[in-house]
């Protein structure tokens, strides 16, 4: 979690120095979800993510240097600098991709689980989406397919309460995604996403079921401490300072430190270690060249 926190803070600063192009969606405040879910998976399990996916990638084992180089759009990036912040994949780690169209990675998870079934493997595929993705129709098409075909999919909703500026409560009918999932016959739990141990525990329960062919949903209540992207301040326009500060009081790193009984000295040491790793990643990314036009022309279709 300290690595994700430091990684995204450093990426954000690089963005503010105009070293990064495009935009950046930081998951600062939501690290407990990424780490808790990943902790419950085997290396051979697969993961799909969304536009706010740096934390998921790091938690699944993507090398921070190569991830940072990808954010910098450099040739040594994990996707050769062609995907960027919102389209990261590292197949060797089982991180099959973060995709930028809200909800569009969800049905891929059903296919990945179908492929596992065909190969007679008991690996599961976890797919993340936010409270914004909860109102995409394809989520329910995918839940239905996973349920009728009894596939090992774990749908993980990171409910950070806002789809950009729109409060989830304002645009989501009924009790929310947990009860919707139950209507499809999925096992469904709701947990405190700021508590990494609670997330990991619930994920272990659901992953075990998914391996046996019972698809599941986990809803994690969480909060992004920063704005949606750089153009959006942490508070002011649609969130009050009080609300943001209240959630910052439930920082997942602090919650874990407390639960694990870490003293201040140990926390400082872990943070410094993460900082050093991220510093190395930034230096690696800076030193990497941009992809050449020849490299950019590759991997379109067939032999080109």
């Amino acid at each position, binding site marked *: 979690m300290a690595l994700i926190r430091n990684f995204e803070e450093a990426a954000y600063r690089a963005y503010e120095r105009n070293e990064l192009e495009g935009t950046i969606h930081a998951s600062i405040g939501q690290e407990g979800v990424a780490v808790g879910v990943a902790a419950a998976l085997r290396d051979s399990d697969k993961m799909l993510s969304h536009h706010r996916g740096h934390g998921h990638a790091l938690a699944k084992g993507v090398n921070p240097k190569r991830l940072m180089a990808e954010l910098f759009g450099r040739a040594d990036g994990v996707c050769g600098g062609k995907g960027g912040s919102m389209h990261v994949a590292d197949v060797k780690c089982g991180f099959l991709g973060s995709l930028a169209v809200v909800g569009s990675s969800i049905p891929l998870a059903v296919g990945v689980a179908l492929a*596992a079934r065909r190969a007679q493997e008991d690996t599961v595929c976890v797919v993340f989406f936010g409270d914004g993705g909860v109102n995409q129709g394809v989520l329910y098409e995918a839940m239905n397919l996973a349920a009728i075909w009894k596939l090992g999919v774990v749908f993980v909703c990171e409910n950070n309460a806002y789809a950009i500026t729109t409060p989830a409560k304002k645009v989501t009918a009924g009790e929310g995604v947990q009860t919707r999932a139950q209507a499809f016959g999925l096992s469904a739990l709701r947990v405190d996403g700021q508590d990494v141990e609670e997330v990991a525990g619930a994920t272990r329960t659901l992953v075990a079921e998914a391996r046996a062919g019972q698809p599941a949903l986990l809803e994690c209540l969480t909060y992004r401490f920063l704005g949606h992207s750089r153009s959006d301040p942490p508070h002011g326009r649609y969130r009050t300072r009080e609300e943001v500060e209240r959630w910052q009081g439930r920082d997942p790193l602090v919650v874990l430190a407390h639960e694990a009984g870490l003293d201040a000295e140990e926390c400082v040491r872990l943070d410094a270690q993460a900082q050093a790793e991220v510093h190395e990643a930034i230096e690696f990314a800076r030193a990497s060249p941009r992809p050449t036009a020849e490299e950019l022309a590759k991997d379109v279709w067939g032999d080109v």
Partner: protein
Amino acid sequence: MRGSFFEGEGVALSREAAQSGVLFPEAIRCALEDGMAQDESIVLLGQDIAAGFPFGATRDLAGVFGEERVRDTPISEAASMGCGIGAAMMGVRTVVEVDFAGFLLLGLDQLVNNAAKLRYMSGGQLRVPLVVRVGQGPFGAFAAQHSQAQHAWLASVPGLALCVPSDAQDAYTLMRWALRQNDPVVFAEDMRSYRTKGALVREGAEASEAAAEGEAAAEGEGSAEGEAAAEAEDLPRARVVRPGRDATVVCFGFGTLLALSAADELATHGIELEVVDLRLLSPLDEHTIGESARHTGRVLCLGEDPLLGGITAMLAAAVDHTAHGTLIARLGARHWPTPFGSSEELVYPSADSVVAAVRRLIEWPNAGQAEITNGDFQMASMQ
């Protein structure tokens, strides 16, 4: 001129072409069957495919290969397409069937945003060996939403190949080819072809062995060079299905049958029409188009979508690019949604309108651009 193309000498193919041999959907079924027998990774997804509904292209395959491999889906085009992509990413070669053009739009986010881009965005880590079968054009008086032509849209998406077979044999050959590719192929079946028949020779054991070498999992760069070579060698070229000297029709799908029929009619008047059947619209074989254009000097580009933004504009540009100075005409659909009933014939080109367009092209005295819609013929000088 409006309507006059339908009142001329009748050379149009009858709606149920009286040919002998195997029906077009049966040829596709044979290709799927032979492909699935050879490659156990192939899985079919689609609505009512176990029953082979509606055109018989998957008939009996569930009986042969089981419902694990021939999977009926709910009416959920987006999730079915996404599921096909996710499975393909993991090396399960998947064929997703979408019966009618209008339904494809529900799966288009998955096809365009994911299938077409995952290999590129992942820097080549992911491959998506997906085949999407989709009906195109008018058929059965199903009207505006079932009957439409989307060739230009689909051809314009980087990362997709677009197959447009014109007869039963080529439907078989191109489907077998599509089932060996490691990147997504849209297999656009002109629905008017479903009632046509043609001779069919299925690939033998030798061809099957060669094809097996082309298979590969969707990971690693180790064998990438070998795969690339196989793909490059394997790319189907456009073909001259009828040689001629006076003018060329560049066409595909059912349009090729219209052009062949028009060529028979024109031959009785001493006009020798060359017919180039494209087979693929992406990648586009500009070389073969250019050769024929330089040979005849006059080219009619025939498509099924409207002239504005349609595939014929792209074909005309390809002719100009490869054989500058060629007299070019375009024949496409009217800029209308497809009306209900037999009125659909007013919208789409027919053999009669091909004959008339070729005559105008041959009569046209100077180099220039000719624009022709079905029943609404315009030619514009380049001056």
